[in-house]
């Protein structure tokens, strides 16, 4: 889950293990969710997304699970590699009426989780 205050949740895994990063989102009206990866000194980069009418979506080595009942999102990384070490953010989209009607509006981000992968 997301922390409160200055200390980010951390997850340390061994290379080759599977990683699961969790996120609790706040707004039941959110209709779209994204996971971002941020490496040191860089801006966040898109990993995978999921719409609220789905409960699972798979990408290459990554899977996102959405549980709308408890407003929970998770990112699973298979066979984690040292290059996966980064801060991972979940983000939720709340539809904005002025930004194209039913299209997408602004994203609200979680506080992030630090993933460290040990060789």
């Amino acid at each position, binding site marked *: 889950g997301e922390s409160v205050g200055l200390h980010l949740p951390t997850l340390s895994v061994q290379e080759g293990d599977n990683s699961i990063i969790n996120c609790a989102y706040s707004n039941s009206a959110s209709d779209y969710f994204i996971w971002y990866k941020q490496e040191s000194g860089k*801006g966040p980069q898109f990993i995978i997304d999921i719409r609220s009418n789905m409960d699972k979506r798979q990408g290459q080595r990554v899977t996102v699970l959405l549980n709308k009942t408890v407003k929970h999102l998770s990112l699973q990384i298979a066979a984690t590699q040292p290059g996966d070490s980064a801060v991972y953010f979940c983000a939720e989209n709340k539809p904005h009426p002025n930004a194209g009607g039913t299209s997408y509006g602004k994203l609200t981000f979680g506080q992030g989780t630090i993933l460290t992968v040990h060789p």
Partner: protein
Amino acid sequence: DVKVTQSSRYLVKRTGEKVFLECVQDMDHENMFWYRQDPGLGLRLIYFSYDVKMKEKGDIPEGYSVSREKKERFSLILESASTNQTSMYLCASSLLGQGSTGELFFGEGSRLTVL
């Protein structure tokens, strides 16, 4: 590839100075955003714009203003910088409209230190 370019990676300013942070995107995106990123607080939205000359306040607009005179450029302005505005500032853009994913494309960030 989408490119979002922030003009300055590192800036050091004094309290009370006026600060301009510039952002340019080359993908003809309608939406542009300014976030600030602080340890333990994630990314917080300052302002966003979904069209030229249009702007809306985000979650923490106090002490900031923005300008969107051209579609590709979105500027963040600190009229009188204060030490609590020391932060990493991230610009992002996205497509608008049905069928767009809402995915944000981020710049590399501008780290501002206010002394």
